[in-house]
């Protein structure tokens, strides 16, 4: 297809990089990335991917922008309060870079819609805020064979891992089951420093770009653990679990599960 002059100018600083060049930029422009959640992780990830010129960015979120989101959800702004997050995110991404086609999904991902949505994408980014969605996204990506960048944050802790189904372990190889409802504080109950979300969401964007470009070593088979209080990054090994309930040779999970929602605050809000 070849790059236009304005594209050569816009992307010049990454085209200059060894191993990227015009060919790499074309790969980015032809890529399709689905981001689950337009929140603390999804915001920085979506912004960097839009800036880099990812050709199609799907973004899924059922919520509207609230004033208390703006402390960390850097894709939204004050005038967007009350608007669906996916619309706000779409306007911001297209405003930065009209090369990007944004596909908004103003809905919660469920077992009945997720496979149909992810099938059109090259890679999925999980920036959701609850265990039911995280296990649903993992299982759907394993069943569909879609690469997945997983990121999670809790107060001053962050985690990231990249899942290439068949090649490496999945999220259930790492944590076989979600905690029972109520045991682990989730979402809004916990509190978060915006920059911590920025660190992990940016790592996810970096993993996606490396995957698209075929560069470097992905976080496959190893979990990145970030501690914001001592600014440490560590890795632990994540082997493929031969007894994994979804990605092993003898899976016990053969269809998607909608786990019970257990963030009490979210429940109250929806009722």
């Amino acid at each position, binding site marked *: 297809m070849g790059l236009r002059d304005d594209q050569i100018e816009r992307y010049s600083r990454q085209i200059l990089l060894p191993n990227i060049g015009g060919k790499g930029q074309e790969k980015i422009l032809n890529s399709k990335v689905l981001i689950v*959640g337009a929140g603390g992780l999804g915001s920085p990830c979506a912004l960097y991917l839009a800036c880099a010129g990812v050709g199609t960015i799907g973004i899924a979120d059922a919520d509207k922008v609230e004033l208390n989101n703006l402390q960390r959800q850097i894709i939204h702004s004050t005038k967007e309060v009350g608007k669906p997050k996916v619309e706000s995110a779409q306007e911001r991404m297209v405003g930065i870079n009209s090369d990007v086609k944004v596909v908004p999904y103003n809905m919660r991902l469920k077992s009945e819609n997720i496979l149909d949505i992810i099938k059109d994408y090259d890679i999925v980014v999980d920036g959701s805020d609850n265990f039911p969605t995280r296990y649903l996204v993992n299982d759907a990506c394993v069943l569909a064979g879609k690469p997945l960048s997983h990121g999670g944050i809790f107060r001053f*802790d962050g985690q990231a891992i990249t899942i290439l189904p068949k090649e490496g372990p999945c999220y259930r190889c790492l944590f076989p089951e979600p905690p029972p409802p109520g045991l682990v504080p989730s979402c809004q109950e916990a509190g978060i420093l915006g920059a911590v979300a920025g660190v992990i969401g940016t790592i996810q964007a970096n993993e996606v770009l490396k995957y698209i470009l075929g560069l470097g070593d992905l976080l496959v088979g190893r979990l990145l653990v970030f501690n914001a209080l001592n600014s440490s990054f560590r*890795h632990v090994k994540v082997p493929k679990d031969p007894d994994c309930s979804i990605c092993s040779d003898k899976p016990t999970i053969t269809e998607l599960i909608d786990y019970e929602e257990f963030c009490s605050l979210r429940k109250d809000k929806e009722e």
Partner: protein
Amino acid sequence: MAIKVRIPTPLQKLTNNQAEVESEGKNVKELIDNLESSFPGIKERLCDEAGKARKFINIYVNEEDIRFLQREDTALKDSDEVSIIPAIAGGA
């Protein structure tokens, strides 16, 4: 026989907000029992009623997940570092 144990944020309430504590034990099971006597309540966060590690909290000896070693019987030696890493779901 000092073992450094990294405590994740959700469990730091039990360790007087310490992110790292020292304990001992010749294997993971003993270490958990020793942690429990220093920080009561921590064992039931890590293990189910049968004493098996829960499925959403992992225990690592250095960089290795004990589920792929000898689980609770995994031996410890001086200067090993144990990390407790729970599943975390936040992202909003």
